[in-house]
């Protein structure tokens, strides 16, 4: 489903954000991408959605060779990839329902499809009774569930989550991760970049660890690990270097 072949990404020709990464993620996998800030997790996700172009190497996503993908085909690739972010990226002037419906509307889905899909997905994320609320009337966890609903309403093959629990308390984070787990059980490939040691350790799923843009560990049933949060890896003092 996702394949990186010796992928390198340089920013402004200097900073090596991703350095010679090779990996393969199969359909239906649940993968944690771990590593300290600046280790290249977000860049990896942005490379998968074509928001960034590789400097060297090849990426295949959903059967497409991204280096050979025409720019006008990029939107069609993104319809196969749902994205969730730490800051939710919800539209404040739209209700929960409208936020989710918007994702279908702008890719030209007919109205009858929107009318059936949106309530179904809101039920899946447990927000069916809050569909008329605006984002600022919801808790952080609820807002993130709206954002997951929006990412998943089009039933993408892949769901990418960039620190989705970064702004949430531990209990809510746990709820959200189990929601992503449920989505994963429908056959959707889930890649989640995270700092959250508790979640990674509890889930016991595949863990890919990055450090300075390089792949340092890839375990089928891994834990958060020590190399990713050691003071040396973080490059800062242990006191203020801890992740949430």
């Amino acid at each position, binding site marked *: 489903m996702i394949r990186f072949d010796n992928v390198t990404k340089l920013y402004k020709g200097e900073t090596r954000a991703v350095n010679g990464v090779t990996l393969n993620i199969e359909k239906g996998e649940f993968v944690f991408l771990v590593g300290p800030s600046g280790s290249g997790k977000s860049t990896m996700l942005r490379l998968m*959605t074509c928001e960034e172009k590789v400097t060297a190497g090849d990426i295949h996503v959903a059967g497409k060779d991204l280096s050979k993908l025409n720019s*006008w085909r990029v*939107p*069609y690739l993104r319809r196969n990839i749902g994205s969730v972010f730490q800051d939710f990226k919800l*539209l404040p002037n739209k209700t929960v329902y409208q936020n989710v419906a*918007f994702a279908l509307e*702008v*890719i030209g*889905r*007919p109205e009858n499809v929107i009318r059936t899909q949106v309530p179904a997905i809101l039920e899946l994320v447990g927000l069916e009774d809050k569909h008329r609320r605006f984002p600022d009337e919801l808790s952080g966890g609820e807002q993130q569930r709206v954002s997951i609903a929006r990412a998943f309403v089009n039933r993408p093959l892949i769901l990418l989550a960039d620190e989705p629990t970064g702004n949430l308390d531990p209990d809510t984070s746990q709820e959200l991760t189990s929601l992503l787990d449920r989505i994963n059980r429908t056959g959707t490939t889930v890649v989640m970049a995270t700092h959250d040691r508790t979640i990674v350790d509890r889930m016991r799923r595949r863990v890919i660890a990055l450090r300075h843009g390089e792949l340092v560990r890839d375990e089928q049933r891994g834990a958060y690990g020590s190399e990713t949060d050691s003071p040396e890896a973080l490059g800062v003092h242990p006191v203020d270097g801890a992740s949430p």
Partner: protein
Amino acid sequence: MSRIRYFARETWTNIRRNLTLTFAAILTVAVGVMLVGMGLMAGYASGNALDRWEGGVQFEVFLNPQIDPSQIDALGIELQTHPEIDRIEFFSAEEAYALVSQQMADQPELLAQVSPEALPASYRVVPRSVEAELIESLAAQFRQRPGVMSVQTGREEVDAIRTWFTSFQGIVLLLSIVLSGASVMLIFNSIRVAMFARRREIEVMKLVGATNSFIRFPFMLEGMLHGLAGGIIGAIAAGALRGHVEGLFSRSDILAFFRSFVVTSNQFTTVVFVTVIAGVLVGMIGSAFAASRFLDV
């Protein structure tokens, strides 16, 4: 259906959010395309007037005041029997004086200095053909005859008027190009502001895989609507201008010469069409420029 509703809704929200810039853009387009219409109408009017004038053109042979009466008759016969000449009309010095005193009725002190003897008698000659070259060659033939003071054709006047109108059109064209450029920039700016106001929506649209053309369309539509509104206002202004100028010409005796400077209703339809299209084009160029510049994948 849902698409049409989406585009209508988004475009309307954009316009409402951004009223002052929208008005500035629309008014600049209106003035710019009105000038386009004005230049076009000036061209039509001068064309119509000069056609009519050239069609009925005459030339006038002025005779020396000291000329012998027998010479006047001889010249008259020669003109009348000329194969290229249709008919002639004799204006005596007295008749010329009567005409002058009529024209100078409100300037008696100036008229007092004109004596009937000093004015030349003349033949007004209507040739068979209206071709300018033929008239010129006829005029040249009679210019050399004894007793002839001068021969005046309408050619110089026609040329002078044409030159005047051409430079007028040139100035109007230049102004309309400058204003159209300003309109493009204003529309460019108002679309850019609209995009900035909606940057979060645009970000989400890109995220979920909306195509570039889908994202751009409401903004292009908005720019086109600005242009269309400006074009329609400009066309109305051009129509008002046409009515005003034609009214002015037909009422005033001083401007009686301009009475034949009219724009036919067919030509005016073309003017309206061109101004509206010009407005829409300006809107399209401005918004397409903004959309392509600020909406990369």
